[in-house]
């Protein structure tokens, strides 16, 4: 009887699944019971009410109003914004470095090719945490004191306390410029559609790039002039021991940004290289045979095909970069992990609650990006005939 059940595929699978679910549930039950016991021993229960208590600590970089009397919840939001900030600029930098290095790796010029090779291998074979610490150390120990700051055209100042730059102070009328930019964008899009339709109908070509480019530059500038220059720059001024005013990029932010950009850039370079190599040589030849020039062949034939190979792994590199930005805690940049998972946790002692929030936040980011990626992959995948 027993052997009969086991021999039948369906009943065998049912038995295996029942065993698996029992094991997993009892494991979870074991952990939950232990947690409840432990919390009881500590004499408290899991509660998120501490989020609304004052945080009692300062955060040096905050884009929204924040001081030590603000709540832990607000500290978390500041952390999320800081993570987003470094991830956003890191992604920009990594993409730029990646494309330059990736194309250089394919260059027929021996020197360019070798320099890119050495750069890529050194960048990606050294741990990211080491890069962050190395850059942070270089800035903090090797840059001059604010007193002897290295001035770049009296515009930006490099010091061991960060880079000081002029900060644009915007007046309310500046919104007019933003509106002008939006109008220009809409106009550019309409003209692009129009030119394309015209070309499909008659074959006549308009200088779309020139027209749209000048439109995008000219209209906001015009608005800026008409509104009477509703913005000015606040320059950093040296006072006492340090610069006052202006925009400050802290050493932590710069170190993190460079390290993330260089490290991820090296990975993106390999992805770009593989993507371009994946486009078969016949495609290039066919494009030339049609009489396309080199840049048009690249833009219209090779790049669209290469991008299909490049984009999915590149997005997962972006995700990696965002997750790696959590290493900010090593140099004291106040991101998600350092605020709610670091100081808030240590001050309140609510490890369970704080860590669950951190994990949930990162899961949200990752799952939404992978959902987007699945959608994108479906959209661009080749339809077999």
């Amino acid at each position, binding site marked *: 009887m027993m052997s009969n059940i086991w021999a039948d595929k369906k009943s065998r699978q049912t038995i295996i*699944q029942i065993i698996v679910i029992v094991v997993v549930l009892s494991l979870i039950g074991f952990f939950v019971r232990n947690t409840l016991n432990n919390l009881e021993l500590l004499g408290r229960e899991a509660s998120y009410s501490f989020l609304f208590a004052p945080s009692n600590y300062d955060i040096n970089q905050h884009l929204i109003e924040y001081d030590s009397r603000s709540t832990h919840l607000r500290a978390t939001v500041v952390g999320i914004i800081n993570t987003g900030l470094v991830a956003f600029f890191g992604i920009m930098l990594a993409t730029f470095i990646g494309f330059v290095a990736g194309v250089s790796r394919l260059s027929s010029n021996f020197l360019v090719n070798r320099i890119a090779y050495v750069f890529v291998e050194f960048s990606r074979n050294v741990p990211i945490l080491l890069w962050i610490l190395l850059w942070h150390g270089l800035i903090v120990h090797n840059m001059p004191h604010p007193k002897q700051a290295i001035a770049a055209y009296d515009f930006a100042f490099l010091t061991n306390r960060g880079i000081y730059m002029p900060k644009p102070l915007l007046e309310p009328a500046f919104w007019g410029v933003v509106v002008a930019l939006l109008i220009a964008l809409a106009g550019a899009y309409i003209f692009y559609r129009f030119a394309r339709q015209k070309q499909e109908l008659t074959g006549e070509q308009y200088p779309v790039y020139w027209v749209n480019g000048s439109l995008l530059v000219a209209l906001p500038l015009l608005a800026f002039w008409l509104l009477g220059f509703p913005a000015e720059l606040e320059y950093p001024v040296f006072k006492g021991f340090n610069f006052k005013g202006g925009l400050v990029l802290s050493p932590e932010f710069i170190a993190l940004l460079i390290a993330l950009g260089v490290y991820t850039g090296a990975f993106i370079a390999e992805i770009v290289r593989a993507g371009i190599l994946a486009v078969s040589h016949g495609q290039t030849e066919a494009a030339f045979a049609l009489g396309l020039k080199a840049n048009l062949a690249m833009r219209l034939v090779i790049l669209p095909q290469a991008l299909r190979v490049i984009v999915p792994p590149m997005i997962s590199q972006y995700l990696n970069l965002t997750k790696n930005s959590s290493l900010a805690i090593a140099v004291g940049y106040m991101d998600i992990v350092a605020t709610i998972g670091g100081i808030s946790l240590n001050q309140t002692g609510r490890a369970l609650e704080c860590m669950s929030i951190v994990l949930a936040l990162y899961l949200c980011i990752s799952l939404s990006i*992978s959902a987007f990626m699945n959608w994108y992959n479906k959209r661009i995948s080749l339809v077999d005939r």
Partner: protein
Amino acid sequence: MDKQAHNNGMHQELPPPKMQVGFAGWIRKNMLSSPTDVLLTVVSIYILYKIVPPLANWVFFDAVFSGDVKHRNECREIAAGACWSVIVARFEQLLYGFYPVHLRWRVNVTFVLLFVALVPLLYDQVRGRKYLLWFTLFYPAFAFVMLWGGLGLESVESSKFGGFLLTVLIGVTGIAVSLPLGIALSLGRQSSMPLVRLLSICYIEFFRGVPLITLLFVASTLLNYFMPPGTYFDLLLRVIIMVILFAAAYIAEVIRGGLAAIPRGQFEAADALGLKYANCMRLIILPQALKISIPGIVNTFIGLYKDTTLVVIVGLLDPLGISGATLADSKWQGLSTELYMFIALGFFISCFAMSRYSLYLERKLDTGHKDQ
């Protein structure tokens, strides 16, 4: 008129133009083939000129290598470059951490024998591979006894472990255990049993969705909550477990890609031969899937090995932890670049070697079936 050196209707062979062959030809072809090429070469030479000589001066020519220097200020008096004396002074710590000095031979023996244990796994042409494989099988137990003590050997607490010893220990253990776990998870994800599939997906997505550092925090702060009151287990062990669980999820995704690339016909052929699930996987599917996934697997291993540096954030004394302690010493304050560069070199060598090995393996296993 001279006598003709060649027959009528034939010209004597001329040497190829000088600018087309040899060194000059190579330079012309690879560095000066077009105006853009010339420009790129000039820019590259400028960049090299800006980077290489100062770096070489700092690293070699203006640097202090002497082990007699015991303070950073002495270094500064001798030369303006790097002060490698800090590495000389802390070399043993960077390698072993605070492992007792008189027992360090045990670490060395274990490390050397690691390569003996690896040989039969890495190269299948070795003579006596069968016997070596038995050694490999028993190596983990042997290494455990050698490192932690027991069976008559003096025991060492894991809080004494540090430096590159810790890196290699966490890295090798993580690699060895996460591969089978990852294979099991990837098979679970492909399984026809919905519950098993669902659980595998949840596991993989969770561990891939959060940064390793948060998991290490969970290991260091939360694991006590999940265990019966009063249980204590070692921080090092907790960290190793987390690293394994984390890497297994990534390995599973890599192998899933390999499995997806196997044509359906292979499964059907295995069924037609009457193979059971286990044999079908072991003999037909996995050998092919693993072969396809080698680059991804090795990349995951390299990533895991590099990620071992994160343990410094939960307070283990890996090379970065040792450097932190060194930099806190007023004698060596501010020499972070020297320390980090040395550690970076250590990681670069091992990671680069791993990626080279993966290329070798790819070429060796390439059966030429891939259509070009």
